[in-house]
């Protein structure tokens, strides 16, 4: 929780998140986190090496009501107390999104509350307000998750978010997951690689930095590419195996992680400087990575840029981030969504709410 005072007149907002494998229900008042209840189906997906959409959707259906009860109990509020219900309307797995959206509608219509269908990715950015207060605008957001890697210019978190660039192939989190798999580490791969990397040498293996050469920067200044990196790691590991030599997992993890974090932070700092922006906020599951935090801080400090990264638990999917964005939208006087709001699995980054 933050140490800001909780003003009674700040909006009390409940957020529902079901875009992937976490059923999250969070409750915030203004920028203050009151509850962050999560049920995860991650264990059911582990043996498939990735999230199985139908398995995730079934788990959401079972988890919604119990997770709601936990969130309300943790926050010590009743549904009738809340000012609005926010829900992830996209992007994400279509069937999974629909469970959360339909649940939010059921709760909203029964409790006669306004509903806000919001963008999951904007919520990954907004969650930082729970840790560091209102986001200075404009800000540059580096959004790095399991499905996305983008640089965004955030002029108004409620109304104007402009993508500057995105990955042209794999997302950063996806690269962590794939590299973990080929190193024999469990799914999701981010946390075990982060852990293994601590004992490794980040300069042991010179893995490629995608879209960082001068000729690539001309066309892809703010874009990312991680698929070549993944292949380079796979080749390196396989060459070792074929030679009958042991794979130094720690060094591979550290060198791979360094390559990812190097590119992400270099381009984020470049975006801040090019746009004259003094705040960089990092969001999404990969923001939980320990190296991206220190590297971003190091590089931003040199240029007088303030870095904001929420604590790891708030970086991966949760309901609090949805509530945080909802709270921001209510405070900004944004009109609620209609009860026929659709789930949009491909919701564009520019859409903050529907």
């Amino acid at each position: 929780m933050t140490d800001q005072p909780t003003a009674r007149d700040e909006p009390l907002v409940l957020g529902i998140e079901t875009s992937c494998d976490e059923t999250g229900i969070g409750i915030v008042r203004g920028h203050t986190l009151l509850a962050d209840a999560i049920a995860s189906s991650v264990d059911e997906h582990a043996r498939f090496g990735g999230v199985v959409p139908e398995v995730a959707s079934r788990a959401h259906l079972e988890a919604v009501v119990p997770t709601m009860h936990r969130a309300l109990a943790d926050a010590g509020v009743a549904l009738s107390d809340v000012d609005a219900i926010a829900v992830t309307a996209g992007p994400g797995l279509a069937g999974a999104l629909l469970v959360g959206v339909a649940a939010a509608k059921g709760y909203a219509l029964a409790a006669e509350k306004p509903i806000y269908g919001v963008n999951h990715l904007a919520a990954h950015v907004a969650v930082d307000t729970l840790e560091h207060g209102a986001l200075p605008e404009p800000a540059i957001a580096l959004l790095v998750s399991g499905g996305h890697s983008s640089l965004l210019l955030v002029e108004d978190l409620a109304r104007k978010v402009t993508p500057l660039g995105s990955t042209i192939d794999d997302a950063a989190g996806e690269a962590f997951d794939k590299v973990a798999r080929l190193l024999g580490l469990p799914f999701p791969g981010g946390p075990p690689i982060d852990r293994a990397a601590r004992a490794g040498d980040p300069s042991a293996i010179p893995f490629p930095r995608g879209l960082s050469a001068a000729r690539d920067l001309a066309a892809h200044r703010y874009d990312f590419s991680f698929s070549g990196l993944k292949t380079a790691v796979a080749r390196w590991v396989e060459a070792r195996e074929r030679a009958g030599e042991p794979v130094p997992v720690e060094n591979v993890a550290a060198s791979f992680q360094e390559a990812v974090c190097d590119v992400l932070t270099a381009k984020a700092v470049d975006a801040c400087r090019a746009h004259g922006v003094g705040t960089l906020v990092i969001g999404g599951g990969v923001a939980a990575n320990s190296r991206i935090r220190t590297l971003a801080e190091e590089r931003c400090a040199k240029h007088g840029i303030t870095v904001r990264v929420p604590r790891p638990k708030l970086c991966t999917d949760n309901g609090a981030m949805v509530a945080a964005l909802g709270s921001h939208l209510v405070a900004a006087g944004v009109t609620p969504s209609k009860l026929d709001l659709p789930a949009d699995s491909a919701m564009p980054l520019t859409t903050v709410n529907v």
Partner: protein
Amino acid sequence: MFENRYRLRPAPPFRVPVGGGVLIVVVDSATPAVTAALASVDDTGVELLAASVTVDARAHGELLAPAVTSVLAKGGATPKDLDAVVAGLGPGPFTGLRVGLVTAAALADSLNIPAYGVCSLDALGWAAGPGRVLVATDARRKEIYWAVYEDGVRLTDPAVGKPADVLLSYGAGPLSAGADPRPEPHAARLLDGTRAAVGDGAHRYADILGLPVLDEPRYPPAAGFAALAADRVRDRMPTEPLTPLYLRRPDAVLPGERKPALR
């Protein structure tokens, strides 16, 4: 059971019945028909106050909540007036089915009222009239969800399968050449006197099923859900978990061997 136990009164607005009757909302999204209804249940029967049915297999998530709001408004009721929620448990295509169930669960939870589940095929069986009928809804992938009813009472567990295979296990109709002819004694008895098939799945596969198909109802009728849950509503039975009748396992493939990165 098939007399006029319920009356559908089409013209709004209605007054919410005072005294005796309790108000329920019905939701079903197990078929392409997105159904919501407001009904009153009392000792003499079930009265349908307002119903909304929209056939659109791809828009359950958009249509259902506004339909609930609209039947409440047509019936002159607010959510707080509701005493119970009745939901169609399927079987049905997963994504659409979950919309109805999670909506029902959220309504019941939010209002702190009980939720009751009814097999969606049962609502069709209830409406199909006396005698023995095959109820079939569309399961996509050229399959049907089906069960057999006698005077509205289900004789077989809800099942999913190809219409031709249904005939094998059910024992009705001509067997396709080369198929294993195994009308078991029980199945053979089921066959006797089956007068018709009913439901969207029966319409789609009428030629394979080889049974006369009733024109109506094509989708599970709201009145059937209300009627089949009426005793539980009247007796104020404890709330039930709304467990979907998926009948199929999720499609999921275990990852194969790692592909070589070196050529």
